[in-house]
């Protein structure tokens, strides 16, 4: 079952801020299944690209067209930011917030939220103020909050950056489940291991542009561009 949002067609999209090009021009077509992983050095524009596709960043040039139209798309996507934003409420209230927005009854929402708190392993912190959570815990919360509405597409900006190995594993499994359930994942990461494990297609960004776009296996085995190769090597350890 592929979501009605796709294919997503991006055509020469650019986002600027005070004259500086943050990302683009970008042109690509994404179909509705699997995981697209965005990699690239710091400041290459991963976050900006995600924000651009999602619509959080202003589209200064080009076109971004969702199969089902923008408004529809807006309602069906969600975002996990690199620096998670915590509402000044308890963990539970944070997780059930999107449900309340959709008018789900309080009790209902609460149950659902508790389930998700469990899934991301925050069960025993549901009642603490979200802002005091540890870095990793905040990322988990953000993830649960993004997934609880069962969106058709999720943008994940380094969702495991400050998770320990075990948690990373669990979150990855969670993401695989979600993907299996038909949610499109668009994920930016610096963890090449993670990229290898999750990616179906890889977007390699450099200076805001898509430098290489290829199926995961192909990309990791023989990157077409020298830069990509160098980037991968730069990452290999020992």
């Amino acid at each position, binding site marked *: 079952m592929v979501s009605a949002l796709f294919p997503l067609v991006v055509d020469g999209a650019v986002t600027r801020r005070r004259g500086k090009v943050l990302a683009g021009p970008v042109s690509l077509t994404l179909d509705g299944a699997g995981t697209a992983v965005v990699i690239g050095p710091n400041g290459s524009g991963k976050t900006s690209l995600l924000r651009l596709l999602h619509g959080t960043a202003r589209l200064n040039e080009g076109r971004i067209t969702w199969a089902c139209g923008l408004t529809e798309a807006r309602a069906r996507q969600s975002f996990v930011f690199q620096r998670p*934003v915590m*509402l000044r409420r308890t963990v539970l209230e944070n997780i059930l917030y999107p449900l309340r927005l959709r008018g789900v009854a309080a009790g209902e929402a609460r149950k659902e939220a508790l389930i998700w708190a469990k899934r991301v392993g925050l069960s025993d912190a549901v009642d603490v103020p979200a802002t005091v959570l540890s870095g990793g815990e905040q990322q988990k919360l953000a993830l649960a909050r993004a997934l609880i509405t069962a969106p058709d597409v999720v943008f994940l900006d380094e969702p495991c950056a400050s998770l320990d190995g075990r948690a990373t594993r669990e979150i990855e499994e969670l993401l695989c489940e979600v993907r299996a359930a038909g949610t499109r994942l668009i994920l930016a990461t610096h963890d090449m291991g993670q990229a290898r494990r999750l990616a179906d297609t890889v977007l390699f960004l450099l200076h805001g542009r898509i430098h290489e776009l290829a199926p995961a296996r192909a990309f990791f085995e023989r990157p077409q561009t020298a830069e990509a190769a160098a980037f991968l090597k730069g990452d290999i350890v020992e």
Partner: protein
Amino acid sequence: MAELWNGLVQAFWLIVSVDAELLEIALRSLHVTLTALVIAAMIALPLAGVLAVRRFRWRRFVIAVLNALMGLPPVVVGLIVYVILSRSGPLGVFGLLFTPTAMIIAQVIIIVPLMASIAHQSLRELWQEYHDLLISMNVTEGQKMRTLLWDARRALLTAALAGFGRAIGEVGAIMIVGGNIDHATRVLTTAIALETGRGDFALALALGFVLIALTVAINMTIHWLGQTERDGRW
């Protein structure tokens, strides 16, 4: 200097010997001001929310004007309200002039800009923090505002208290539209003005100290109830 001291003493006696007349005007002061405060809040807070959340063409202009209106001279507000409520004015038929209602109207006009400006200040801070998240959840304008207002409630307290303070201490406007009629529209501030005119400074000061004590007491309670300034709370 003697007046100051006498004032304090008189104030003390007025309070301990629960002076009936004092009680009456004090309660009227509270009734008028609190009503005005509630109404003003219902106008100012949503307004502040809109200004924080919406990006419309005249936004900066509106904000500047709002800030400027904090300087509305009470007397002028009083006059305008008077002219409108006067028998020969458009709303004359309701005969609202020289009633507490008129005073409430005047106070609302005076404190709305103040409260809106302060509230907007806190809300935009929070909005910068929440912006991305709320956008990403594509919430409606209304929901944005409700979320902001709710999560910034402690900060909004300052706005409310400022409004309350401005209203309860205000005299210029309510003197004109209320008329300081004994047993009808006399409140603490107008009574103070009256005694000052009589040159009875001690009594005027006494009433003043009563008024100050009242506001301090109210602020204390609100702060304690609000549990503000506690670690880890917002």
